[in-house]
């Protein structure tokens, strides 16, 4: 059963196990430094589908099928699927997964959804409500652009603080028992807003939420950044990461040496289109389900804090001049389970 630590954190005493994982990416992701860690890469950004929305649904479906394959399971073995994406009403998830017949829990945490799904699934499994679940999220550059910004062919310039939505999905199978890695602790984030209104600077909008969640976790567990091999944020990018360091220093905690950001890992650092970094639900999900879990599998990393961050605005709230609230959910992944 989960044990509450402090106000925000749950210790998952039975250490839910990550049995398998899979990442699916598009052309640009296939040209990036993490390409070798992806399970499926497709040169065709439409994935052979008629619309960008169908392409994104396809990404999720492929990620789930591949992860199930690797675990030697079929959809009928899975008791719950925890999924989400960025599109209105989360249609990438519902349309992508509608044929699988798995009880579906739709989640929305913007780009924080992968960590949210890991936390919720971890609590379900730890509490004994399920022994086999799937977590999956996706994003697609083209479907996100047309919903949140401009048509693809529109000739505009991106600001230096803007981020590039990743075309990818990451999915994993969680089981009650197994060889690890394990989900040991989870901190559900609070909604934080320090008044950023620029929708082209989401790193800045999300950094306060990341700082709050990290502080809550350290306070609740009595740990420090040095207790972990790596603190990985979802998609703060260059600007958000710098602001996170400054916010943490403001509270007397130094994390820069232990920190990396999925948004800075997936594309080559010199890619001029990417500007401040990558973003999207699929960013943290695919980096986790390719690079990070591989590194945990070969014991290069043993204890990591995976914290995905989300900007909780809509096009309407931005047009109405509202500031952008952020949220960050954190899970502690480890190669050793609780004794």
């Amino acid at each position, binding site marked *: 059963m989960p044990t509450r630590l402090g106000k925000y954190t749950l210790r998952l005493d039975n250490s839910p196990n990550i049995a398998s994982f899979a990442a699916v990416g598009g052309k640009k992701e296939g040209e990036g430094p993490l390409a070798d860690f992806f399970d499926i890469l497709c040169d065709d950004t439409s994935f052979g589908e*008629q*619309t*960008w929305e169908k392409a994104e649904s396809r990404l999720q479906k492929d990620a789930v099928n591949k992860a199930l394959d690797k675990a030697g399971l079929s959809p009928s073995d899975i008791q719950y699927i925890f999924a989400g994406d960025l599109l209105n009403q989360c249609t990438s998830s519902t349309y992508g997964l509608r044929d699988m017949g798995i009880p579906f829990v739709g989640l929305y945490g913007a780009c924080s959804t992968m960590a949210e799904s890991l936390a919720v699934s971890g609590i379900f499994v730890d509490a004994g409500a399920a022994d086999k679940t799937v977590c999956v999220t996706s994003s697609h550059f083209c479907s996100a652009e*047309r919903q949140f910004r*401009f*048509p*693809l*062919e*529109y*000739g*505009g*310039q991106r*600001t*230096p*603080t803007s981020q590039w939505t990743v075309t990818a999905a990451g999915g994993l199978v969680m089981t009650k028992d197994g060889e690890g890695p394990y989900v040991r602790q989870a901190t559900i984030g609070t909604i934080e807003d*320090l*008044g*950023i209104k620029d929708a082209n*600077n989401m790193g*800045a909008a999300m950094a*306060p939420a990341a700082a709050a969640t990290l502080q809550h976790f350290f306070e609740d567990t009595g740990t420090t950044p040095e207790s972990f091999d790596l603190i990985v944020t979802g998609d703060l990018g260059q*600007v958000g990461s*710098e*602001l996170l360091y*400054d*916010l943490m220093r*403001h509270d007397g905690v130094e994390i820069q040496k232990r920190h990396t950001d999925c948004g800075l890992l997936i594309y080559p650092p010199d890619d001029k*289109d990417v500007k*401040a970094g990558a973003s999207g639900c699929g960013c943290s999900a695919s980096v986790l389900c390719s690079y990070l879990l591989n590194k945990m599998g070969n014991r290069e990393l043993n204890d990591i804090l995976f914290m995905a961050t989300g900007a909780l605005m809509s096009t309407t709230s931005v047009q109405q001049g509202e500031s952008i609230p952020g949220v960050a959910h954190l899970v502690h992944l480890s190669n050793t389970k609780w004794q």
Partner: protein
Amino acid sequence: MKMTASEYDRLNKQVSPNSSVVKNCIFAFLIGGLICTIGEFLTNSFLHMGMLQREAAALTSVSLIFIAALLTGLNVYDNIAKFGGAGTLVPITGFSNSIVAPALEFKSEGFVLGLGAKMFIIAGPVLVYGITSSVVYGVIAFLFKLY
């Protein structure tokens, strides 16, 4: 102690890089200038073919609109605009791109509610305020007998 919004705003301004104004202006000047030079070349060619000034000017606009629409469809215009910025936005080619791009993009929602309804999603405000200000200008010109 928690950071206040104004402290955070200061911090954000320090950390967030600004657009490079000088570089953007130079590129806008060069690419915008190039588009206008092509326009001049077209006008002179049409005049050379024996057209009147009015006809040549109209045909130049139509030609530039066509070229920009074609380049938008061929996935080229947005790549030029990455460097050109305002240089590709301000000439009539930018107007063409702003109509063709949504027309292509929203075709997937059908010809009426997609293509038809969303075609002017970017150019619409330009038309509304452009036409409104021209009417206001016309009224002022009429009242003060400026013409």
